[in-house]
Structures are given as C-alpha cells and as structure tokens.
C-alpha cells in the first residue's frame, strides 16, 4: 500500500458568510474575495506542507487543477509541481490531474509533463481528468464534446510520448501536421497515468482496459461507494481476462490525525465542514452541465439529484459514512487498515 499527500490548495481566508450569497464558490464568486497577501501566505504554507511529505515518508506528493474557484488555487498545477521538484529529492510528484478536454492543444500538456519528468529525473506521476462541470462554464468549452475531446486528447498525448516524432495527428477536435515532442519523457515509455474519478461506469471500463490498466482512484466518496467502484474496476479487469493488482486501486479521502479522537474531531470540524459544505458544492446546472455525462448517466443522476450530497453534511456524518477519516493515530490506522482489507489492497 502506498500513501499520497494530496493538496487542493483552497483559499483559506474566504469570507464564507458573504460567499454563500453566490450560487457557487466556483465560476461566479467575484475574485474581489481574494486577498493576494493572504493567498500568497497560503501558497507558501501549502508548498511547505507538501515538501514535508517527503520527510514523513509519503510515496507521492500531489497537486491538482481547478479553475476560477476558491476551492483550489491551482489553475496551473505544473507550476506548483515544478517548485516541489526543486525542493525534494526522492518522493514522487503527482499531478492528479490535468483536465484534457479544456485545452485547445493537448500537446502542451504532453510537453509540460515531459519537462517535469525530465526536471525530476523520472519522479512524475500524472492523472487525466475531464474537469468538473463548473469548468465548462468558466472555460466556455462545450460539455457535449467533453468525452470526445478527452479520448482524443489522451490518444494524442500517449502517441506523442510513445511514438517517434514528427508525426501527423488527424483528429476531429485536434489536428496537427507536426507532433514532435521535445523533450521526450524521462521515463520509458512515459510517466505512470492514474485516473481519478467519482465512478462513472464508462470511465471504469476505459481505465481497466488491458492496453491501459490505469490505476483508478475513487475521490471524495463514502466507504460504500469506494468499495462499489473498486469492485466494479476489478470486475472489468476480470472481464478483460486479468486480475487487477492492488497498485491499480486507489482511494482519495480527507484524513486528519490528532493526539486523541476528541481533539481531532474538534480541530477538523470547521475546515472539513467548510470543504464539503462551502468549497465543494455546486448547483446541478454547474455540476452536471448538459452533455457532460452521457444521456443514460444524466438521466440516472437527474432522478437521484437530491441524493447527490447537496445537503449540508456534518463531520459526524462524513465520518460515519467513511468519506473522511478523523481521529487519533490508532483510530485512523485501524480505519485505513479496515478499508484496505475491505478492498483487497496490499
């Protein structure tokens, strides 16, 4: 089992009461809420936290990409990754992930990841995602093209990493006469690719396919959902004729440790509830813009939209459902081990 220290880099000094007057903390929240002095302090502190992950023995320290939101201040996660590379020696650097459909030239993603892989001498691990629904509002990208663009951009990046350039790429959304990656990735054939997801069936099947076998990471979900989706991945792998290794199964959850359970609960309450009730929520129209999910998925989601976690959640509820793990070292260790055993990880 491997451990990843993953940062979202929220803007901490947010005036939550005032921010709640807006429909979301994404896209429409005025950037006058952002104070650069406080934001700069946040960046410095967050980078320190991530760098300390190497000392504490984490296998990977990781960042992600989000746009126009107080939820995460990393519209360009590669910039943070580059800083982390300079300040660490051995730990792997994860970028989970870049939102492929949102860019007009996916080769820039291939290029920048190659650069980071070279700068870190092969310490890079990357993720490919579609971006969340709100980002289709903030970039103007058509959500109805999201899946097509994701797959085409993915294929282009992989080809650019694996094949000798220059080559021509003739896609529906992306067309290039010359795809010729300088630099090539440091790792052969390329950095490991993980797929963070909330568990869409299409994504699970695609990630588990034998030509990819991409590790699948269930994010911010209840213990029950994590088990369900990791099992779904295993089932897909079996159907493809192989057994999924525990290296292919991942789970991302907020974890907070203090000396005692009571202290942990008290210290984590406000920030964790802000995460789930203020930073993360989006109204339906921003969460699932039309076309972002397939018609079948959207229909299914539309019928259960009340159950999509749009209601306030308390820390007790988040703990009870296994969405977050909070407590003393002993409690947290036990819970992680239970999740490990429950999901057959090693």
């Amino acid at each position, binding site marked *: 089992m491997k451990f990843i220290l993953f940062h979202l880099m929220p803007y901490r000094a947010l005036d939550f009461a005032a921010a709640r007057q807006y429909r979301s903390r994404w896209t429409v929240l005025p950037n006058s809420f952002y104070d650069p002095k406080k934001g700069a302090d946040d960046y410095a502190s967050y980078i320190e936290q991530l760098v300390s992950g190497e000392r504490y023995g984490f296998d990977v320290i990781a960042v992600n990409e989000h746009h126009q939101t107080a939820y995460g201040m990393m519209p360009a996660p590669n910039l943070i990754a580059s800083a982390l590379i300079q300040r660490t020696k051995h730990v792997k650097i994860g970028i989970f992930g870049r939102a492929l459909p949102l860019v007009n030239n996916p080769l820039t993603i291939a290029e920048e990841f190659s650069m980071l892989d070279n700068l870190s001498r092969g310490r890079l691990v990357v993720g490919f995602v579609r971006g969340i629904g709100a980002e289709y*509002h903030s970039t103007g*990208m058509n959500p109805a093209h999201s899946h097509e663009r994701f797959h085409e951009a993915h294929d282009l990046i992989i080809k650019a990493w694996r094949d000798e350039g220059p080559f021509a790429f003739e896609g529906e959304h992306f067309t290039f006469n010359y795809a010729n990656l300088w630099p090539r990735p440091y790792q052969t054939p390329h950095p490991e690719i993980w797929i963070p997801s909330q568990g869409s069936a299409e994504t699970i099947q695609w990630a588990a396919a034998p030509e990819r076998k991409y590790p699948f990471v269930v994010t911010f979900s209840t213990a029950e959902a994590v088990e369900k989706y990791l099992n779904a991945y295993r089932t897909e792998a079996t159907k493809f004729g192989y057994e999924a290794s525990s290296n292919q199964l991942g789970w991302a959850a907020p974890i907070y440790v203090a000396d005692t359970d009571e202290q942990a609960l008290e210290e984590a309450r406000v920030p964790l509830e802000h995460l789930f009730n203020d930073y993360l929520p989006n109204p339906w*129209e*921003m969460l699932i*813009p*039309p*076309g972002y999910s397939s018609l079948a998925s959207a229909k299914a989601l539309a019928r259960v939209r009340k159950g999509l976690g749009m209601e306030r959640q308390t820390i007790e509820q988040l703990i009870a459902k296994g969405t977050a793990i909070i407590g003393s070292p002993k409690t947290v260790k036990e819970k992680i081990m239970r999740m490990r055993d429950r999901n057959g990880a090693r």
Partner: protein
Amino acid sequence: MPRHSGHLFVMNETASDKGSVVSNGPLGTQRSKSPVFPSTWRGRVPAVSCFICTALTVQRNGCRFFETLSAKFDVLVPDHPAFGQSDTPNWIRSVPDLAMFYLDFLEKLDLQEVHVVGSSLGGWIAAEIATRNAARLSSLSLISPAGIRIKGVPLGDLFIWAPEERARKLYFDQAVLDRVLSAKPSEEEIDLQTKNGIAAAKYCWQPRLYDPDLEKWLHRINIPTQIIWGANDQIIPPQYGNQWQRQITGSRLTIIDKCGHLPHVEAPDELVGHLESFLEGVTT
C-alpha cells in the same frame, strides 16, 4: 374563419401518423429520422408553413398557439435532430448542419412555397436555411431568434440558471410563470428535458447561441421577412430585434408588449394575429 392554405412543418417530441422523415447524411451513407408533429398536415402543397420551434422549453401538447395556428394553417413541426423523439446523429453537429438537414428535408417532402416560422433556436435555424437557399420558401417569421451577437449586449445564461430562475427570466406574465412553476413533470418529461438539454448544449454552448458566420450573410435573405420580439425578453434583449431588422432588407420588426422570450406561450393569440396578417400580405 376560413382555413388558410398552408401547412405546418413540425419537428417535435411526439411522433405522429405522418411518421418520420429521413434525410441522407454525408455521402448518402448515414440517415437521420425526424418525427413529425402534429397531425394537422394534409399533404397539401403549396403554401406550407414551417414552424421550427425552440425545443428547450416548448410544450406542444395542449399549447394554445399550436392549436390556434393548426386551425388556420397546415402545420408541420419536426423535432430537430437530437431533440425530442428524433435520433441523435453524430454527423449533425451544428446549427449550419441543421440548416442543411432541413434543406434535404424540404426537398424530400417536395415542399414548395413554405412559410417558415422559427422561434429562438428555431429562428436561428430558419435564418441559416434562408441564407443558404430560399427557393422553396415564401416567407420568414423570426420570433426572438438566436444566431447573431451584438458585442456589449449579453444574452441571458440559460445554462447556468436553476429551473425556477430560468422560468422567471423566460416569462413576463405571472400567471404563465405560476403555471410553469407548478407543473410536476413526469419521469418521461424529465428524461426528455435531459435529452433536450444535451441537444441544446451541442448546438448552442460555444459560441454561445450564435454563429459567427451568419450575420454577414443575412443580406442574402430576399423573401418577405418579419421579426417579432417580446418587449421584456431577458434571454435575447430586444436590441437584437433592431439589428436583425437592419440586416434583412425590407423586413419589419414588431414588438409585443408585456411579453418575454416565448411569445407563443405568453401571447399566443397576438402572435397568431401577427402571423396571419403577415402571411395574408405575402400571399395576396
């Protein structure tokens, strides 16, 4: 009142006894079916009225506008590809594609002297058709059409608003609004709304509700054209009506007071009146 000679060309969410119209796709290898509604089509040619409606919000069953119009004209309202009961051909990807599809459609049914009536997205499609080939068209009625952009005059963001908020922006009349907000859609209707939403995003998300290459060709529209706008339209502000009127030679602009983006819902009788007098003027 005497029945006018005229047909309505309907693409709609209810397949009718008229059945489906099939259009060849690229190279004749792919096809798209568009069910036709309602059943007031009598197959009479010429003087066909083609109503191409906005599909996001239109309720055809029990809609007074369609009922009144159907009593006076033969009416044909197809479901646009990807909307309603139509299938979703991957090769129809844009509003210009829809226009080409409908030119096939008119040809397949061999319709002549069609009066095209289009609202919102439908108006946009109608204008794209007319700039390409108006040989089978007699007139154009554009009701708060999308399709062009005036810099500095932003459109309402239909895609980000919650349903209630969207209804409040769509309708001026409180009674209409109350009716819309109190409706309890069935599961089938919710599924249909979901499908229509995806179709709307496909054609309208980016560039948002316009075609950068449409306005420069509007001068090619050389058939009688009227433009109708709700004075209180919060989706596409009435300034757009003036711009359309300026760009289409000889066109006239009519503003309907106390009316939002969908005059066929809020002012059906007045709208039918405008259509009637306009079409009479065109045909006599």
